[in-house]
């Protein structure tokens, strides 16, 4: 009967109940959508930068990073490293690179660059370098090594296809330089990278510089969740090398993700606050309107606990109706934008500046559902406490005789 009263009360003021249902649905929807948005962003960043370029871990000479990617700190034991990586079952892919910092000089300009000596075929396992080419080509084995330069760098230095440039590496510990010819331009989703990274075939470098150095092994694991333990194991097997995770190599990406986490958290706080306010308000109104009725119920012997039960029953029902509506809205919007993508370039030029893709594809994670539903239900129940307490404070006589 309590349930029946509660149920009927809900339909007494349809507009008001609708408002509560709507705020619950909205809370669920916005919460989930932003979760999906954030997760989509994360996945995207991982994909753009980690899966496609950095790798989950990288192996270097222990001083290579500290010496600012100096050419003169190659991997001392490439055979051993290759061996370990080949035999490790958790490794899905690894590639060898000759990477070093250098100065790119044209007759008029110069700019610091990072030379990526790669095997384009091997890199294909991570990402396709050739598919990033916007103009020209990148053919191995020419007399002057073919260079692939980012569009933006080319613009900055006024480089045209066919330009000859000098690449001078190993600045701090013995200069190594060669003359290359720019034969292609590329554009990647990572705008920052386009200004810094130039590609050259590792085989060309080996011929030209004669050292056959490998500076970096970039490794992808089968399971990213086991990143830390995989890293530890590789490090212990390769004590003379340095194994770093992507987060350690590019802390700014990790920080960026943490920052979005915080923004998200604050955002969610605001949503929950609005939801709580809406529920407190409407439920309080509904109780104040029923002052006399509640007073009468208490007078004829309905205990306080029963009254509290009735009020909670009402919010519970409203929440229970709101949740699936929110889920449905979320299903539609995440489904839609998950396909089409959200273009953030207009909204947030800063993201682009950071070097990330500006198209975000919201993606759901199962745990979001539990989290957000749990939070919304919690918020709505907590917000009912205040109106319920208010109802308990009613004194039956005053309530009845109030006109």
């Amino acid at each position, binding site marked *: *009967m309590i349930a029946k009263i509660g149920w009927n009360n809900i339909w*007494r003021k349809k507009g008001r109940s609708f408002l509560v249902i709507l705020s619950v649905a909205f809370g669920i929807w916005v919460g989930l959508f932003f979760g999906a948005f954030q997760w989509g962003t994360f996945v995207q960043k991982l994909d753009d930068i980690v899966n496609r370029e950095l790798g989950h871990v990288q192996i270097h000479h222990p001083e290579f990073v500290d010496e600012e990617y100096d050419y003169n700190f190659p991997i001392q034991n490439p055979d051993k490293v290759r061996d370990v990586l080949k035999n490790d079952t958790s490794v899905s892919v690894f590639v060898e690179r000759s990477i070093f910092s250098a100065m790119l000089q044209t007759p008029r300009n110069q700019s610091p660059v990072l030379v990526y000596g790669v095997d384009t075929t091997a890199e294909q396992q991570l990402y396709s370098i050739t598919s990033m080419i916007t103009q020209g080509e990148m053919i191995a084995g020419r007399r002057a090594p073919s260079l692939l330069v980012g569009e933006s760098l080319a613009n900055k230095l006024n480089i045209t296809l066919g330009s000859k440039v000098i690449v001078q590496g190993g600045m701090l510990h013995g200069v190594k330089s060669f003359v290359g010819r720019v034969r292609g331009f590329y554009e990647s989703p990572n705008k920052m990278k386009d200004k810094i990274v130039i590609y050259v075939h590792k085989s060309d470098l080996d011929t030209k510089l004669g050292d056959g150095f490998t500076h970096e092994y970039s490794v992808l694991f089968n399971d990213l969740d086991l990143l830390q333990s995989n890293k530890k194991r590789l490090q212990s097997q390769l004590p003379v090398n340095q194994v770093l995770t992507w987060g350690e190599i590019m802390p700014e990406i990790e920080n960026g993700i943490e920052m979005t986490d915080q923004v998200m958290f604050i955002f969610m706080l605001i949503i929950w606050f609005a939801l709580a306010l809406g529920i407190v308000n409407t439920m309080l109104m509904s109780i104040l309107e029923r002052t006399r009725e509640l007073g009468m119920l208490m007078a004829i012997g309905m205990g306080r606990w029963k009254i509290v039960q009735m009020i909670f029953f009402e919010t519970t029902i409203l929440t229970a109706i709101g949740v699936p509506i929110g889920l449905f809205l979320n299903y539609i919007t995440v489904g839609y934008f998950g396909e089409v993508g959200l273009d953030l370039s207009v909204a947030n030029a800063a993201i682009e500046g950071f070097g990330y893709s500006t198209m975000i594809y919201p993606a759901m994670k199962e745990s979001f559902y539990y989290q957000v539903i749990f939070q919304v239900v919690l918020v709505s129940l907590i917000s009912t406490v205040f109106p319920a307490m208010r109802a308990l404070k009613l004194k039956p006589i005053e309530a009845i005789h109030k006109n």
Partner: protein
Amino acid sequence: MNVVETQNLEKLFIDAGTEVRAVDGVSINVEEGEFTAIVGPSGSGKTTLLNMIGGLDNPTKGKVQVDKVELTELSKNELIDFRLKNIGFVFQSYNLIPVLTAYENVEFVMLLQGRDPKERKARVNELLVAVGIADKAKNRPSKLSGGQQQRVAVARALAPKPKFIIADEPTANLDSKSASTLLDIMQQLNEKEGITFLFSTHDQRVIDRARRVVTLTDGKITEDKIVDV
């Protein structure tokens, strides 16, 4: 046997700095089966007295016993429970739960008491017939006239077979015909079921139906007479 016994009952209100002695030393006994009216001008303390007897309000001083239980010694929750089990209420208005039907309203208190369904059904139907609302059992209060609502309220108050029923101006909002019907029903129940009624009223026609009339003036009993009918 006395259903109600009060001794020197006092209620002091402090309203904007001035003291109002709404009930001022009332000692009254109500015996089982009485049909008693509390009368007196507006502000004489009728409502305040009935509230204290019904356990809805605490006396400032004095004692109230209902069925030998001292109400002033009960806690808030015990009082609610006591009211539920022993006292039926009929108020001037807002007696019924608007979202329940007449039938459900009558059943409600029995449900709170945890009576079994069979007993509830029999009792509710019996009472709805007694108050002449049987054909409107499925109506919500908004679909009943004021007089019909008060009759449902009487049935509701009677449903759990309380020790007595307190009715504070039950006819105040009713036209004279409805008032008279309600009084007929109350009287019948009083005679047939022996239910004790204690009601307050301004209405001379209602006063004429009472078998005992207690007059309050400024919170004091100024007259207490048994009427022969």
